[in-house]
């Protein structure tokens, strides 16, 4: 579901557009004090819309402790008051900034005095209630200086500091804690603004009541202008930590910079508001807060443009690089400016730059975004358009408020614009995260499917391979058996049959042929036994089969085998070859040599530098050496078989004449045959 919602950037773009529209419409609807009027509908409260204004000759910023103690005698003054409608404002006048700069000379002496302006609100008896006036609520008092509020003669509220360049925009709620009935009748409310004369100020309308109902409007304003923003920042900071954690695991990923960027912005933006709390602290408190405000806009510019690029895929590399340098310039430049002018007591530059630096960053980002959207025309980039639009509207609106142009009971727009921007950030971040999770899931699903397919394929080819292997083994075995039948048993049986067919009555010869035939059969069967690379076991089966026949022929056999290493290549077919070779040699000796002593031995021996095993068969019969070509009878097919089988085993064989008899040697390699 998440994926369905955030996955479609077109939806996201229209969502942001609607959200921006709703925010702007809502804020416009609530401006001009309508918020308070709505909040206080149907309660017993009096709304006061007129006041008297008097510009005092006093030049003292510090407000007097009582009205009677004022140096300008405001308490007793009746003339000079001008009637004004509330909310009233005196806008900043153009020369203000210059004047602000000239407020203090380098030696600290004042050039321009402070201007004090008084407002007087005459209140009739509060309707309803027996105890008279209890609560006073002013949605906004605003100036760059100090404000003090008096009821009749008494100081009931004042700003925290009296430094003249500290901006205040606070809503004010005054609760009168007096004896029951003491506040009956009519009263006079005085508001004292002490600021530079061109700096301007704004005073909202006044609400009074005999009970506690005004807290409702005050609370609402505090929530919308302060607490709501705090909540947003808290949430954003928490998400910032989350984003940082994700980034630490996805540093190399394509969406990695998004998370880092979000984390940085989440901690940088609230820092701007937090820094403001230190503005009235001694050096470097104020400079630091100003630097955070100005330099922060530079960092923000870099972050936002990078985020925009990564999130939307719309990147203008040259302008991005320019943005980076511009951001660094703002951070370093604003810091340097503050340090440079600190000793010179000439904050006019900072006053200009306080607006100028963020303005440059904002304008650049606006232009960059619009350019990117026009160049790429993709939905993700369009998402940013309403946000940028909202921010620009908010800046323009709030600047009017700050400069006291128009009437000052509006809510500030900028906090809402920031919250909307962060929401846009957040939506894109969630989309990136969900997108990567979904991609991973799809990839793993695909992988699983591919794996299953591959497994099936593998199983099939394995079956085919097994089948082929089985067929090949069968065919090899068939060929081997055919050869054995043909060369061995078959040949023997045929010669036995010929003996009988030709009517030869030599029964002994037939029996001998059949005995040989059975021997062949036994050796064939033995060759099927697993010999497990054991040459001696092979030789022992040969003896078991042929021993009785040798003995019967009066041939004494000396069995003289020594342990030899295992032959890794010795399997059933090669075992058969060895058995046939030795059988041929033994039969030969038996039939032709006339020997009466036979010795079979084994040993480890080298042949041409290669290690191997030799089987030696020594007899004491007539000299016989088939290697001497001419002596080789043409009918002796068996010896040819010995040579060819030896070659198949990659071995060597040799006949040697001994002083008394012959020695046949069969050498077999120890290592695997090629």
């Amino acid at each position: 579901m998440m994926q369905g919602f955030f996955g479609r950037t077109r939806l996201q773009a229209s969502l942001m557009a609607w959200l921006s529209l709703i925010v702007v419409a809502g804020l416009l609807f609530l401006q001009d004090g309508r918020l308070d009027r709505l909040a206080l509908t149907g309660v017993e409260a009096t709304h006061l819309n007129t006041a008297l204004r008097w510009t005092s000759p006093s030049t003292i910023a510090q407000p007097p402790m009582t009205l009677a103690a004022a140096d300008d005698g405001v308490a007793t003054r009746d003339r000079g008051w001008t009637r004004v409608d509330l909310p009233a404002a005196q806008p900043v006048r153009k020369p203000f900034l210059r004047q602000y700069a000239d407020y203090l000379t380098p030696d600290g002496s004042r050039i321009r005095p402070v201007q004090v302006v008084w407002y007087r609100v005459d209140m009739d008896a509060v309707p309803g209630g027996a105890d008279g006036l209890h609560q006073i609520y002013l949605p906004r008092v605003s100036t760059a200086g100090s404000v003090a509020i008096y009821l009749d003669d008494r100081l009931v509220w004042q700003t925290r500091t009296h430094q003249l360049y500290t901006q205040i925009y606070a809503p004010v709620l005054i609760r009168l804690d007096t004896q029951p009935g003491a506040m009956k009748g009519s009263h006079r409310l005085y508001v004292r603004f002490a600021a530079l004369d061109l700096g301007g100020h704004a005073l909202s309308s006044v609400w009074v009541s005999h009970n506690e109902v005004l807290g409702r409007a005050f609370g609402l304003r505090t929530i919308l202008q302060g607490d709501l923003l705090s909540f947003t920042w808290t949430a954003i900071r928490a998400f910032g930590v989350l984003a940082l954690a994700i980034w630490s695991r996805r540093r190399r990923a394509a969406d990695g910079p998004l998370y880092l960027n979000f984390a940085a912005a989440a901690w940088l933006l609230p820092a701007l508001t937090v820094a403001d709390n230190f503005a009235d602290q001694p050096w470097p408190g104020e400079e630091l807060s100003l630097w955070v405000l100005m330099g922060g806009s530079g960092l923000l510019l870099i972050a936002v443009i990078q985020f925009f690029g990564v999130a939307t895929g719309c990147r203008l590399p040259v302008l991005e690089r320019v943005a980076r340098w511009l951001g660094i310039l703002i951070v370093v430049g604003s810091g340097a400016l503050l340090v440079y002018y600190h000793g010179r007591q000439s904050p006019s530059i900072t006053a200009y730059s306080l607006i100028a630096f963020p303005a440059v960053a904002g304008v650049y980002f606006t232009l960059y975004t619009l350019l990117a959207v026009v160049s790429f025309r993709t939905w993700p980039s369009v998402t940013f358009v309403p946000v940028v639009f909202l921010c620009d509207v908010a800046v323009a609106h709030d600047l009017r408020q700050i400069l006291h142009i128009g009437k000052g009971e509006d809510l500030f727009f900028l906090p809402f614009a920031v919250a909307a921007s962060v929401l846009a950030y957040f939506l894109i971040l969630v989309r990136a995260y969900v997108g990567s999770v979904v991609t991973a899931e799809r990839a793993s699903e695909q992988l699983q499917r591919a794996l299953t397919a591959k497994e099936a394929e593998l199983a099939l080819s394995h079956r085919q391979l097994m089948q082929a292997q089985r067929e090949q083994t069968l065919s090899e075995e068939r060929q081997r058996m055919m050869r054995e039948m043909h060369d061995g048993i078959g040949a023997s049986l045929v010669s036995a049959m010929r003996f009988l067919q030709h009517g030869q009555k030599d029964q002994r010869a037939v029996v001998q042929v059949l005995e040989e035939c059975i021997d062949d059969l036994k050796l064939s069967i033995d060759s099927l036994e697993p010999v497990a690379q054991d040459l001696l076991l092979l030789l022992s089966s040969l003896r078991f089969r042929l021993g009785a026949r040798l003995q019967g022929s009066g041939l004494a056999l000396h069995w003289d085998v020594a342990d030899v290493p295992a032959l890794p290549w010795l399997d059933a077919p090669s075992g058969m070859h060895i058995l046939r070779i030795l059988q041929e040699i033994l039969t030969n000796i038996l039939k032709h040599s006339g020997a009466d002593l036979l010795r079979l031995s084994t040993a480890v021996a080298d042949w041409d530098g290669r290690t191997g095993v030799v089987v030696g068969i020594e007899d004491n019969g007539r000299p016989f050496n088939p290697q001497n070509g001419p002596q080789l009878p043409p009918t002796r097919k068996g010896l040819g078989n010995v040579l060819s089988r030896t070659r198949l085993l990659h071995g060597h064989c040799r006949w040697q004449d001994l002083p008394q008899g012959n020695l046949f040697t069969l050498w077999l390699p120890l290592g695997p045959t090629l």
Partner: protein
Amino acid sequence: MVEDDTACRHALTQAILSSGDMHLVWQAATLADARARIAQPIDVLLVDLGLPDGSGLDLIREIRETQPTCQVMVSTMFGDDANLMAAITAGALGYLLKDVSAGEVIGEIRNLHAGGSPINPMMARKLLQGQTFAPTPPAPQATEDEPEPDGRKVLRLSLRETEVLQLVARGYVLEEVATRMGITRHTARSFVRRIYQKLQVNTRVEAVRLAIAHGLVPKD
């Protein structure tokens, strides 16, 4: 004697009759035939394993129960089949190759009756593969079958018995084995018989299981 091949049966009968001191009590060509006569007391039973109506193994087991003193000899074509080992596990004490001469038949039967048993290299090899050595000194009495910790019985051979098997597996015949070990041929044969007896167990299930454990019959 139980033998389904007429020529073979005839040759064996002739050999036994010609011995002079042996008496052929009965002969049969089928398992059913043999079962009908199994009650008659005999000294030696010569049995072919592959009978037309069943396996000679069953007959061996039955006669081991009814006549424990009867010595069973298996008649085999080549002396190498796995059934031969199964037969020894079931209670046979020797085997006879079908192609040997009449004189050798008599000799083998006498040997068996005198307490000796034949063995060939392949059998020696199989026995060596399936055994473990007794941890105690090689006293023949101390080498009974004992269950292993996992419940599996293994063939425990003494060092002398093992030596006999090793020499046989390397191709030496029993005379040479005896010479090399400094014992008589008869003693060497009795070693083999003792090995056979160790292989033998009482129940059929155990016999089969033990034979499988020793790799004498295929698992399926």
